[in-house]
């Protein structure tokens, strides 16, 4: 039975503000800030490592813990970006452009305060928007049937290959390889075992969570091993004014609002992630500024744009994740794993019968933004210590957690082999410009894609025309074709135009 939004909101408040849920939220935000501040860790890896440990925790509290890690890491990434010019997460990359110069000019506190405030306020704006949007999402989601769900899964993968840099064909190969690996195990309709080689422990297929741990933890640790042992070599001096930083954010409401919305919009596109929204918002702020030459030399507007957008990305990425089960980023891929593990299946139910749990998630994000602001402003001078941790201490710790976590999932040693093998494959993919996120998305979407493909074919008696019969599915097919070939056609037309006589 659908809960009215107001009633759902009040139930959500009672969930969020109860113990131990609020405790888990604080733990998640703190862990997230630490993970985010440690270059090479970030929200995806942190969430992937913590995910198996959430098994004993109550479902809503577990999801709130994961989403709090995500939120905390987005702010945490800016700490290293500002203090030592090394973004803790890809989402904080654009923060280095002006955050680090501000730090070198003796305004590190201003920069950190700007970061905390822009993250908190930007996030609060987009979370509020999410409450409003969610009421309309259920109408859209209910219009989708099996053919549309299959096509949305394919569209999700094709969009990543366009958004991510590197060869589009490489991205598609990675995505389809991810889809292929999900066919290991018992087939969804007939009781046939596929690619199990007679191994009973493979009948349930490869674990999606183990794949995430391999691709985010093992791969990252291999990358980290190839970088210098220490992250921050010199002592970081933190000076400046916190309140000046805070006031600076509120003096620029348009930049704040626009950047947050850019983050939300881009975050909703599968695979784009916070790094893209970061740069987009920064570029837009620079374009709209009267003093664009000061960007890159310690202009706080650059930090506002970057940090507000990456907070907006969190809320944006929740839209396709909760509506269709299509993650908007690596972190939401892990969150999706958590949702499925804890029995919260993405789709219409999350906006109808489980609306209170969904609102609890949004409310936790809202409250989390306040926590980030308070902690960011109060303890910011102490947070620089995190950046001094040697990566050689991090690697064995993370790998021990990853191995133990993998065995926790199903007490199945194939999950341990999965994190090792996929970790190496992920490393190879990154070194050779294959999109890891496309691969992750393929792995996530495989079961959805196959089940909906088979259901659609059963409905149509085996005919593939079902995918173009309805207006919505036809539109999705057209969107896939445009996404795949649009850029190529564009550049072809541009070349033809150049060759035509004037």
């Amino acid at each position, binding site marked *: 039975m659908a809960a009215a939004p107001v009633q759902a909101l009040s139930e959500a408040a009672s969930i969020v503000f109860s113990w131990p849920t609020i405790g888990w939220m604080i733990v998640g935000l703190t862990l997230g800030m630490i993970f985010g501040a440690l270059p090479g860790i970030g929200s995806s890896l942190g969430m992937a490592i913590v995910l198996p440990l959430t*098994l004993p925790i109550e479902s809503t509290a577990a999801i709130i813990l994961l989403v709090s890690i995500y939120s905390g890491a987005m702010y945490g990434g800016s700490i290293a970006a500002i203090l030592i010019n090394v973004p803790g997460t890809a989402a904080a*990359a654009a923060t280095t452009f002006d955050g680090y110069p501000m730090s070198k000019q003796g305004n590190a506190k201003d920069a950190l305060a700007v970061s905390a405030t822009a993250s908190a306020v930007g996030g609060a704006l987009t979370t509020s928007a999410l409450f409003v949007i969610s009421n309309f999402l259920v109408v859209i989601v209910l219009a989708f049937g099996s053919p549309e769900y299959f096509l949305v899964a394919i569209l999700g993968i094709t969009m990543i*290959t*366009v*958004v*991510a*840099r*590197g*060869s*589009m*064909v490489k991205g*598609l*190969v990675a995505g*389809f*390889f991810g889809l*292929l690996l999900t*066919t290991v195990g018992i*087939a969804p*309709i*007939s009781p*046939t075992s*596929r*690619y199990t080689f007679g191994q009973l422990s493979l009948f349930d297929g490869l674990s999606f969570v183990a794949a995430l741990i391999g691709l985010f933890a*093992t791969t990252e*640790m*291999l*990358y980290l*091993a*190839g*970088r*210098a042992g220490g992250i921050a070599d010199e002592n970081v001096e933190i000076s400046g004014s916190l309140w000046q930083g805070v006031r600076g954010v509120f003096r620029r409401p348009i930049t704040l609002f626009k950047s947050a919305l850019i983050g939300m919009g881009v975050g909703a596109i599968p695979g784009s992630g916070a*790094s*893209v929204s970061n*740069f*987009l918002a920064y*570029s837009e702020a620079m374009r709209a500024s009267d003093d664009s030459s000061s960007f890159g030399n310690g202009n706080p507007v650059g930090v506002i744009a970057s940090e507000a957008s990456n907070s907006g990305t969190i809320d944006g990425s929740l839209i396709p994740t909760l509506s269709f089960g299509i993650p908007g980023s690596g972190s939401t891929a892990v969150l999706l794993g958590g949702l499925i593990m804890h029995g919260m299946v993405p789709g219409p139910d999350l906006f109808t019968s489980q609306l209170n749990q969904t609102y609890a998630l949004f409310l936790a994000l809202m409250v989390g933004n306040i926590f980030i602001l308070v902690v960011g402003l109060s303890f910011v001078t102490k947070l620089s210590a995190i950046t001094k941790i040697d990566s*050689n201490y991090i*690697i*064995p*710790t993370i790998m*021990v*957690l990853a*191995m*133990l976590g993998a*065995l*926790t999932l199903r*007490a199945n*040693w194939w999950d*341990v082999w999965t994190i*090792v093998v996929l*970790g190496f494959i992920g*490393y190879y993919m990154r070194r050779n410009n294959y999109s890891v996120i496309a691969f992750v998305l393929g792995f996530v979407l495989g079961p959805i*894609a196959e089940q909906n493909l*088979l259901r659609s*074919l059963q409905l149509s008696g*085996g005919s593939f025309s079902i995918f173009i019969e309805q207006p919505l599915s036809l539109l999705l097919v057209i969107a896939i074709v445009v996404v795949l070939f649009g*850029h*190529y056609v564009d*550049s*072809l037309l541009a070349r033809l135009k150049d060759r035509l006589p004037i």
Partner: protein
Amino acid sequence: MYIRAQDWSFDTKVFPQSMAALVIIGSLLLFFQDYLPGPLRTLVAETGGAFGKTDELEEELEDEADTEEFNMPDYGRPLNPVLMTAIFITGYAVLGYYFSLFIMSPIFAAVYLVWFRQPWWIVAILSALALVLAYAFVTMITVPVDRGVFVGDLLMIGGGI
């Protein structure tokens, strides 16, 4: 994977065969891209990058990161750090299967840190941490990390789960 699916029913094979075919076609296109005709080669080799100018900014940062990456730290060891880390991770998993993760976790941490020349007290602390984590997994989350092919129920830390 494509050939193996031939004996299955239509419902069972349609998805894996389609995906396998797409992976094969894509891989062949990439492998032979230098020999493809002009327009097809452009399609295969061209980057996505739908966000134009932002890609330039991102590329600048990644170029810097790549330069750092190729200047790998030198620990005075014969093999490069990434390869050694991969070997240690593989050894940890394989030996953990035979001797249990409970025993191998602190050993992995110790061997890794000693190889990368970390101070003895760091080796001691992190090895102890690895042991504590393994113990916590067995006792609090009741994961059978104290089991291995050669160890069996020998350790019985989790009360013989």
